[in-house]
């Protein structure tokens, strides 16, 4: 904007003093942004790395021989490995059902798919407890058949599915709309089957959005805390995921263990942001709020 005032002959009279004021204002605002983000985002993130390496590499590696830590890592990976594919199938189906179509209630359906973003994770977990817990709707039925959902892996997976449900549909839908239907129709005319059209025509046009949706789903599934706290029962070594392990270690003043686990999840966050950055530069994915 400082430049644009130079191109404005009309404003040229006062441009010198105003330009100087602009420079001042600009650097003041930039300094504010660095200060604010520093206090809220940068210093806290840096702190994770500093604390994790406080006792050097040996301190960090010590946690890796902790059986409960390894169990938490394993459970987190298993949860993501089930949640992400299921939500991918759902997200693709939902996006394909909605894209390039017009029907009454379409925007309502989109809002419904977005609902999990507006519901507190704790409330989401509570819903599952009321449904599958031993005093819930299906409690007696599950009990009679010896099936455990709450305080076990299925509950953790269902909570993660609930929380991350909208991500993929939300990323893929705009990409499908942008790609339009012409190519798919052409493929169908040329005799391609539905599957062929999907694999050869539709998927390539949405692959970057899909990848971004996958990354977000994965990051959230691995990091979910509130909903998992409620349904998991936090049984050490059994139903404790990494975020729950962090809380427990923190409460017991085992700062090294807490920060080692935090380091793993922080690295996951950094990878997520880097992938997003690369995708936005390379493939023109729009950044948007969730």
């Amino acid at each position, binding site marked *: 904007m400082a430049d*644009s*005032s130079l191109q*404005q002959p*009309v404003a040229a009279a006062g441009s010198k003093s105003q330009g100087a004021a602009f420079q001042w204002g600009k650097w003041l605002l*930039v300094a504010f*942004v*660095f200060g*604010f*983000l520093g206090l809220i*985002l940068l*210093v*806290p993130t840096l*702190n994770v790395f500093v*604390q994790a390496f406080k006792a050097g590499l040996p301190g960090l590696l010590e946690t890796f021989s902790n059986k409960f830590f390894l169990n938490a890592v394993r459970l987190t990976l298993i949860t993501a490995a089930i949640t992400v594919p299921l939500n991918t199938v*759902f997200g693709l*189906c*939902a996006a*394909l*059902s909605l894209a390039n179509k017009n*029907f*009454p*209630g379409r925007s309502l*359906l989109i*809002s419904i798919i977005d*609902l*999990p973003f*507006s*519901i*507190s*994770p*704790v*409330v*989401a977990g*509570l*819903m*599952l*407890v*009321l449904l599958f*817990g031993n*005093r819930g709707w299906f409690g007696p039925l599950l009990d009679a058949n010896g099936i455990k959902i709450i305080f076990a892996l299925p509950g953790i997976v269902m909570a993660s599915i609930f929380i991350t*449900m909208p991500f993929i549909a939300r990323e893929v839908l705009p990409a499908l709309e942008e790609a339009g239907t012409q190519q798919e129709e052409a493929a169908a005319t040329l005799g391609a089957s539905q599957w062929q059209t999907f694999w050869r025509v539709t998927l390539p046009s949405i692959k970057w959005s899909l990848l971004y949706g996958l990354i977000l789903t994965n*990051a959230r599934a691995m*990091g979910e*805390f*509130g909903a998992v706290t*409620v349904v998991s029962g936090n049984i050490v070594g059994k139903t404790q995921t990494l*975020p729950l392990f962090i*809380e427990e270690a*923190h409460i017991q003043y085992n700062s090294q263990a807490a*920060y080692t686990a*935090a380091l793993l*999840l922080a690295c*996951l966050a*950094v990878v*997520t*942001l880097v992938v*997003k950055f690369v995708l936005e530069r390379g493939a023109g994915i729009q*950044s*948007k*709020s969730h």
Partner: protein
Amino acid sequence: MTSSPPSSSPGLWHQILHAPWTWRVTWFYLILFLFLPMAALVLKALTLNPAEIWRIATDPVAISTYNVTFFTALVASIINGFAGLIIAWVLVRYEFPGKRFLDAIIDLPFALPTAVAGLTLSTIYSTNGWIGGFLEPFGIKVSFTRLGVLVAMIFIALPFSVRTVQPVLQDMEPEMEEAAWSMGASQWQTFRRVILPPLMPAILTGVAMGFSRAVGEYGSVVIIAGNIPFQDLIAPVLIVQRLEQFDYAGATVIGTVLLLISLSALLVINLIQARGRRFYG
């Protein structure tokens, strides 16, 4: 709503049976993982008698958690509304070293698990932490107080305020400002009369989304707060505490209150966006 064209003859069941399989997967998934759990909460709340619901919902501890939750979330989202506007402005209008880096890390709160955020914020804002240590001589304590809840809520809700305003600002043409300027408007006038009005729907949407997220937040707050009733106990933490005591009725009522608030916030967001589209399309 189940199938595409609102054709009159074949009937709903016919439409459901002959819907494309992508439709059937979508609905099956929504019913199993979204509608069924939501129905469980609502029906459980309905089985309680109204007097009981009222007693639990207006219990002094519950009331104090609403106060802490909603007031702190509101303050956090308003602070983020201002900060987000400035951040978006700086990222869109100015060139400076480190700009791309700053732009990339705005999304950090979406990517960083809340347990990690709570852990590291509580460390650096504790009385012997990097930032908390500076504040301690002034008698300001952050970790384990309501101020800590505020810091955590600012953290997790920040991206909403930036990412809603940024694209609108990007699409705004500087010609309008230059015109206002060349006609002798002061910087403040230009900002208030020309720049701010079209940004307002985006700012309010960001504030409402941030508020909605902050109200529901559990992970980062439970770690940084002391979770003491009447001081810094928030409603989601109270739900978890009630569940730990197997008080399902208590958890259900407070959970329903939170759910209703979230849905109202969602409605407000949609109204703001609809109005924004109408006026500034």
